[in-house]
């Protein structure tokens, strides 16, 4: 019992030490009835930080091999579900002294012609410590590098009835440059909103024994390819069965979500490693 308490105490102390500027929540939710959102920026360090807030529209994309990255668009077209042009933050720039926190109000002013659905943009919170200048170069050269830390979170705006769905298809395996195989799935988003959920992959060998059990939380904003690496040391030549299940779980990121739950989506795929 004593050991558990000591471990827990140490755990919380250690976790708390590892924070300088903390931003919460990860997703700021707004809708037709509540166009105001708030973002809390906390300075947990003993230095003062200069903070600035900006917005950029973006979403995750993938190539044909399932390699993912973020696509950012500085001036999104009207056809994209961006709220970049009609979201404002107050204040946008401020100084946070040690152990201080600041609430940043977000106000969304959508145009009248919007269709039902989910619209979003990314919030970039930049922080850099305020340091007193010191010149210590003497007769030589000295290099001073200032670090600016950007943390990217999301603000969403929901209009009318929002719905989402997912279609998992085109399962196949592909060999990469290291000789390992990759399992690829095409994820097609349905409805008028992104799909936020848990993806659980289970792979069984020909004897029905589990060889891979992986679970993570993924956001599907638009269609994308999802890849899973099948390491050579585990996946010897033979027959396998993969079951990928997507479980809608928007509340993990957006506790205020009012979107209706949807049935789990499952894909079963049998393949052979030659």
């Amino acid at each position, binding site marked *: *019992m*004593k050991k558990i*308490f*000591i471990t*827990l*105490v140490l755990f*919380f*102390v250690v*976790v*708390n*030490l*590892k*924070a*300088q*500027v*903390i*931003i*919460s*929540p*990860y997703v700021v939710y707004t809708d037709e009835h509540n166009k105001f959102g708030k973002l*809390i920026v906390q300075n947990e360090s003993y230095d003062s930080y200069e903070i600035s807030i900006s917005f950029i529209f973006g979403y*995750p994309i993938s190539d044909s091999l399932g390699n*993912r*990255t*973020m696509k950012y668009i500085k001036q999104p077209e009207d056809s994209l579900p961006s709220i970049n042009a009609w979201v404002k933050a107050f204040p946008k720039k401020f100084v946070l002294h040690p152990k201080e926190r600041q609430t940043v109000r977000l106000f969304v002013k959508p145009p009248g012609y919007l269709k039902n659905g989910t619209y979003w943009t*990314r919030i*970039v919170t*930049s922080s850099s410590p305020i340091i007193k200048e010191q*010149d*210590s*170069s*003497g*007769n*030589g*050269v*000295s*290099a*001073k*590098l*200032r*670090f*600016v*830390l*950007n*943390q*990217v*979170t999301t603000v969403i705006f929901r209009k009318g009835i929002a719905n989402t769905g997912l279609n998992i298809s085109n399962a196949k395996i592909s060999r990469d440059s290291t000789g390992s195989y990759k399992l690829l799935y095409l994820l097609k988003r349905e409805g008028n909103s992104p799909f936020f959920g*848990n993806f659980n992959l289970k792979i069984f060998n020909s004897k029905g024994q589990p060889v891979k059990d*992986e*679970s*993570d*939380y*993924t*956001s599907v904003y638009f269609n994308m390819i999802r890849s899973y690496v099948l390491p050579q040391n585990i996946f010897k030549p033979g027959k396998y069965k993969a079951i990928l299940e997507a479980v809608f779980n928007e509340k*993990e*990121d957006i506790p205020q979500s009012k979107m209706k739950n949807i049935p789990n989506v499952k894909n079963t795929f049998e393949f052979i490693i030659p």
Partner: protein
Amino acid sequence: MKFKSLFTILFLIIFVCNVLPQSIYIYKHKDLNFGDVFIGYSKNILHFNYGAAKFSMHHNFLKKKDFLITFVLPEYLLNGKNYLPIKFDRQNAAWSFRDRRRNRRRFNPNNPLIIRGVKQNRSIFIWLGGKIYAKNNLLPGTYKGTIILTVEFL
């Protein structure tokens, strides 16, 4: 009995004081420090050298998350109108789930780094060095630049 109660109170105090929001937690442990460089010489700070910058980060969401980590790196450091070239490559950057020199994974900091399936409260450590060359005709002084580190979930 008294000992148990004391621990319970201590635990509750610490727990209440540490109700942390679900977020990404980033910590800069060390700046990138080249120290003084003699004119006519170069200095290459590798990821395991003392002068390398060090960061750590973790998240506290229940499910595993994929991190996308991007550096915007300067090509030059400036001192008025004078400039000092700076370079970064795979020798200069590495990451690991453990705070140790062994088994670090090197990466090119000029490209985005994706770390998949990071569990709740599992720390990622990143080290970043760089290379500068102070040419013979360079004026003495302090040369400054900015590195932008962007961290987000993918």
